[in-house]
């Protein structure tokens, strides 16, 4: 599919994402200006506050955006997942340039001019409104311009907390190794940033009194018109957001940020919609976000794997009996989180130790133990997840006594391509990954049974289950309904054949007659 075809097929979704992106940027900048400019003015009046406040704003900006989102999730009122959290983070990022430029702009007003203003008998308020703010306006608008361009960039990260925007395409593109998605997301975001920079540049010239006569009225009118359109879009978005009803019969379905999780979530979402339930999708949430969001109540359910719950969430030492793991997880979730664990869906998604098909055939390797002697000359590529978790790399290398020539930590979705293009020689992928067959990769058998079982299940809040009877019925139908091969095939339809996930799920559901 060429990029042009991709755009033709997806322009409706792309426009929606751009709109979401603009709304997030617009609202956050609006709030940041409403907070930042008065704060800046206050700082010019109280010298003692200047250092501490600017210091705090400075520190805010040095926190990596993904980490900031992470900090905000568990906080009450401002945290959780979705638009609100994204807005809080975006405002925090936008404050520094706005406050700093307000202070610099006002303090930069020529002392003799300020003195003349006072000597003419202006009150402090009049000095501020008639002299300082007009003369500082250019510098302040520069600050808003910088903040806006930063916000357009940071908003791409907002997709990680389910707030939407162009980051959805970027994250999805990275995960599915789909350049069209990546391009559409990144290029649109870049164009938005450039356009915002250009428009605010025109407005800035208009506001700085030296430039007032130089800007052509036509250019300013265009800038003003476009800015007005953005304001209207933002206002409509805000209005809609405020008006979203909290329906009784509404379920918020979440997923983690990989294809299979989104697929499983979509399956249940469509089944619920079929049964007349209103579904809100909060897909592609990073890290532990879905768990924390579900426990805090902003999410009703999401697909998970028993092994992940067992080790990463409940912090038990890995064991190998699937039944024992499932029972333990079910008990602990009911006691600790008031969350119900569904029947297993019928397949496991465990770590799959993969090597190239050629290597496997030439060296005649079938199990991890057989491959261990070759590890000394091999480079390994592992995702961040595998590197850090209890049942990941540290235990794995010890269990098989593995020593690699080099271990690279990289994005999980990129490891498959890295392996097939000989950048690395061994990876830990997902057993249901659709591209395993496509790229001619071979899974080595875990002959020492190191990896704990990872049965797919849905985790559902108990109160949701009680509130939405249709959910019970849908979950019962999905018990043991998906085989590993089926899952691999479904994943491949999306990652390999680049089909639309909703479409893939719809076809599959009708085949299964769910």
């Amino acid at each position, binding site marked *: 599919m060429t990029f042009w075809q991709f755009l033709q097929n997806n322009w409706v979704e792309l426009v929606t994402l751009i709109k979401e992106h603009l709304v997030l940027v617009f609202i956050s900048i609006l709030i940041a200006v409403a907070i930042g400019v008065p704060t800046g003015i206050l700082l010019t009046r109280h010298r003692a506050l200047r250092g501490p406040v600017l210091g705090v704003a400075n520190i805010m900006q040095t926190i990596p955006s993904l980490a900031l989102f992470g900090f905000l999730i568990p906080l009450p009122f401002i945290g959780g997942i979705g638009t609100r959290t994204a807005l809080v983070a975006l405002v925090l990022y936008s404050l520094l340039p706005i406050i700093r430029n307000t202070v610099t702009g006002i303090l930069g007003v020529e002392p*003799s*001019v300020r003195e*003349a203003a*006072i*000597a003419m008998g202006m009150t402090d308020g*009049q000095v501020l409104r008639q002299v300082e703010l007009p003369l500082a306006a250019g510098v302040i608008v520069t600050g808003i311009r910088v903040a806006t361009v930063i916000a357009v960039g940071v908003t791409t990260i907002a997709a990680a907390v389910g707030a939407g925007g162009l980051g959805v395409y970027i994250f999805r593109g990275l995960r599915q190794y789909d350049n069209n998605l990546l391009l559409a997301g990144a290029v649109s975001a870049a164009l938005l940033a450039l356009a915002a920079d250009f428009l605010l540049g025109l407005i800035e010239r208009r506001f700085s009194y030296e430039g007032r006569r130089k800007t052509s009225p036509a250019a300013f009118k265009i800038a003003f018109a476009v800015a007005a359109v953005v304001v209207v879009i933002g206002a409509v978005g805000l209005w809609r957001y405020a008006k979203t009803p909290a329906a009784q019969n509404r379920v918020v379905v979440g997923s983690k940020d990989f294809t299979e999780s989104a697929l499983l979530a979509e399956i249940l979402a469509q089944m619920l919609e079929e049964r007349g339930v209103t579904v809100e999708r909060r897909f592609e949430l990073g890290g532990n976000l879905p768990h924390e969001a579900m426990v805090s109540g902003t999410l009703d359910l999401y697909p998970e794997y028993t092994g992940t719950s067992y080790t990463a969430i409940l912090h038990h030492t890995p064991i190998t009996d699937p039944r024992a793991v499932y029972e333990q997880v079910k008990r602990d979730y009911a006691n600790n989180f008031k969350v119900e664990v569904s029947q297993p869906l019928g397949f496991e998604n465990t770590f799959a130790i993969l090597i190239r098909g050629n290597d496997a055939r030439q060296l005649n390797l079938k199990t991890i133990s057989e491959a261990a002697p070759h590890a000394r000359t091999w480079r390994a590529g592992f995702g961040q997840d595998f590197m850090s978790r209890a049942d990941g790399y540290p235990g794995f290398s010890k269990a098989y006594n593995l020593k690699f020539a080099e271990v690279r930590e990289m994005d999980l979705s990129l490891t498959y391509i890295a392996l097939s293009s000989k950048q690395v020689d061994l990876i830990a992928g997902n057993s249901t990954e659709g591209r395993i067959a496509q790229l001619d990769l071979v899974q080595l058998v875990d002959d020492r049974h190191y990896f704990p079982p990872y049965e797919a299940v849905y985790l559902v809040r108990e109160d949701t289950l009680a509130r939405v009877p249709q959910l019970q019925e849908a979950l019962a139908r999905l018990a043991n309904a998906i085989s590993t091969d089926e899952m691999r095939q479904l994943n491949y339809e999306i990652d390999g054949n680049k089909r639309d996930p909703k479409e893939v799920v719809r076809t599959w559901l009708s085949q299964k007659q769910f």
Partner: protein
Amino acid sequence: MTDAADNSLVQFKNVSVSLSNNPILSELNLNVERGETLVLLGESGCGKTTTLKLVNRLLQPSSGEVVVEGKATTQWDPIALRRHIGYVIQEGGLFPHFTIARNIGLVPSLSGWNQSRIDKRVRELLNLVGLDPDRFTDRYPRELSGGQRQRVGVARALAVDPPLMLLDEPFGALDPLTRASLQREFADLSHRLGKTAILVTHDVREALALATRIGLMHKGRLLLLETPDGFRASNNPQARAYQETLS
């Protein structure tokens, strides 16, 4: 002396000013008579600008008091006091983002005049300082020459017809020819309007040309208070030093 005090517009009574323990002005006693042009003469740092700023309460005395129209500046509402006093500084201190008309009309507009009265007054004042209203009202300060800006500065200070004008080196940044002609016009104008003026300068020629009385200041003290003739005749060594620069 009591008669003089009755006719005084501004009185300095034992005024001292120190900033972070540095004495800027020491025990100043001085009466400014109605209608006179008092010139404070001295080199930079002698306390002459400080003296000026005490009058419209841009600064306050550390001890003693400054009395304007029979009332100590600390008793005045500072805003009312300042709108009552014209203030002219070097280069006019004009607002760069205001047109000439808005600059001149500022104090009237702050005082709540209606627009047509302000417009009329602005034209009147521009004529008074020798600028053509039709050419200048809608211009910005940066489009004017230094001399024109200075005229606008004087017009702005005169806007609400204040009894007292404070001028801080008003002609300092001008070329000698422009300066000389503006000085003449100013002397003429203040005489005609019967204004009281306190003018600060380091230029002895300007002092001699404009002053009814000259106050010579040095290191925060008033050394001498004399008419121009008295100043020329003085034996004070500082005054002699200024005299010598003239020949």
